[in-house]
């Protein structure tokens, strides 16, 4: 009898170990997938903002848009169009999976409101800063925004009294050094005009997303990630469209301008095709980010998501440089080195890299 029980116990332990291991691996794969999708989101967003009416705005500029409008308002508009497309994808998926009712129910709850707050911080503010940075400095800003796990660790220390030990501090120093290496390439004679300012603006995105990671990490421990991301993208898209764009319009001296440009953007078919693709990639990226964080812990989840510092430039190079033959997307070796260094720094902040090998040892 004891022997039979022993066999059952062994089988149960083996099954439990397999379940835990599968869950952990799935979390890592989902979090890594979020980084990859972020790269494609960046590439297709940039592609969308180079076609249709955008080609005129950023090119011949027959509408005679001011430098302010081109730099800031169009950046916010690109972000708004992308997030609206992303929210539509999220709602379609939620409806297909029978979660649309829960989406509406979650909005009017405390975790739902926390998610809306995260969306406002990570959406209108950070997404616009990211798009403006991307337009001004190119894909160099992508690794800069990958600083958000580092910022998340610092904000977590300040706001939530979370751990910030020597290893994490070392990781932050590695990230800052890598950021400096990447930023230094934009100061050269052949850098895009306004590249350094673009990098500084992109840092605002990293700050907002670091904050969002802290706040949304809490929210998704209770809300289904697919519902959470629907709230996030819907809030972000609407806030960009009805708050940020009019503000930029007023600052540009024409309050109606933002709505006129938004109308032209949404009816520009040849660019909307790419915005639809970027919106889908953004949906998959953010949803996987939230899901990965909730499955394998925010620290490891954000480290895996941080691989977008590699996937961003890589996907832009593949999609824009190779597939569409656009010049200027190939990156100098030092940027690749900086991106890899930053990824390592992010990994060191989020976890002890040796634990990866220890985990493998224990699983074997």
């Amino acid at each position, binding site marked *: 009898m004891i022997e039979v029980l022993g066999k059952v116990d062994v089988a149960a332990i083996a099954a439990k170990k397999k379940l835990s291991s599968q869950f952990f691996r799935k979390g890592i794969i989902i979090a890594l997938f979020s980084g990859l999708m972020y790269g494609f989101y960046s590439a297709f967003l940039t592609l969308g903002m180079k076609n249709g009416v955008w080609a005129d705005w950023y090119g011949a500029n027959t509408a005679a848009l001011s430098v302010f409008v081109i730099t800031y308002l169009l950046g916010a508009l690109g972000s708004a169009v992308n997030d609206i497309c992303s929210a539509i994808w999220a709602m379609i998926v939620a409806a297909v999976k*029978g979660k649309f009712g829960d989406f509406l129910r979650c909005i009017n*709850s405390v975790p739902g409101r926390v998610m809306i707050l995260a969306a406002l911080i990570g959406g209108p503010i950070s997404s616009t800063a990211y798009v403006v940075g991307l337009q001004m400095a190119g894909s160099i800003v992508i690794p800069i925004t990958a600083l958000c796990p580092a910022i998340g660790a610092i904000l977590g220390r300040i706001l939530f009294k979370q751990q910030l030990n020597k290893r994490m501090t070392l990781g932050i120093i590695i990230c800052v050094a890598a950021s400096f290496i990447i930023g230094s390439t934009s100061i050269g004679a052949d850098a895009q005009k306004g590249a350094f300012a673009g990098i500084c603006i992109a840092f605002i995105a990293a700050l907002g997303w670091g904050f969002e990671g802290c706040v949304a990490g809490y929210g998704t421990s*209770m809300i289904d990630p697919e519902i959470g991301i629907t709230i996030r993208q819907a809030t972000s898209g609407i806030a960009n469209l009805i708050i940020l764009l009019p503000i930029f319009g007023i600052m540009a001296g024409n309050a109606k301008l933002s709505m006129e440009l938004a109308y032209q953007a949404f009816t520009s078919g040849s660019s909307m095709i790419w915005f639809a693709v970027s919106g889908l990639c953004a949906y998959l990226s953010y949803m996987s980010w939230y899901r990965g964080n*909730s499955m394998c812990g925010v620290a490891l989840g954000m480290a895996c998501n941080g691989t977008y510092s590699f996937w961003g430039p890589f996907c832009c190079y593949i999609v824009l440089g190779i597939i569409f033959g656009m010049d200027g997307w190939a990156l100098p070796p030092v940027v690749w080195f900086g991106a890899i260094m930053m990824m390592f720094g992010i990994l060191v902040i989020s976890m002890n890299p040796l634990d990866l090998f220890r985990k493998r040892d224990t699983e074997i």
Partner: protein
Amino acid sequence: MMPLNYAILKYFTKVEEACADDVINALKDTYGNFKALNKKDVITALMTAEANGLIEETRFELDNNNELKVYYHAHEEGAATINKYIKD
């Protein structure tokens, strides 16, 4: 009616311990038509809640069909967090 994920978490504040099958049985009257009320999704929801410190594992066993059953319960801090943010 609260969202399914909330109901799953809330259930653990009202029972000593439960596994995925217990959750499905307890919620099927209200959420029976929800696609997400299936064993795979509920197990994922429970493991996610565990990873975020809202519930903790108490024991596990193989049932008569040789299927793994993992039991969880909401510890004091987890239950307090659930009740604080998810109202009845």
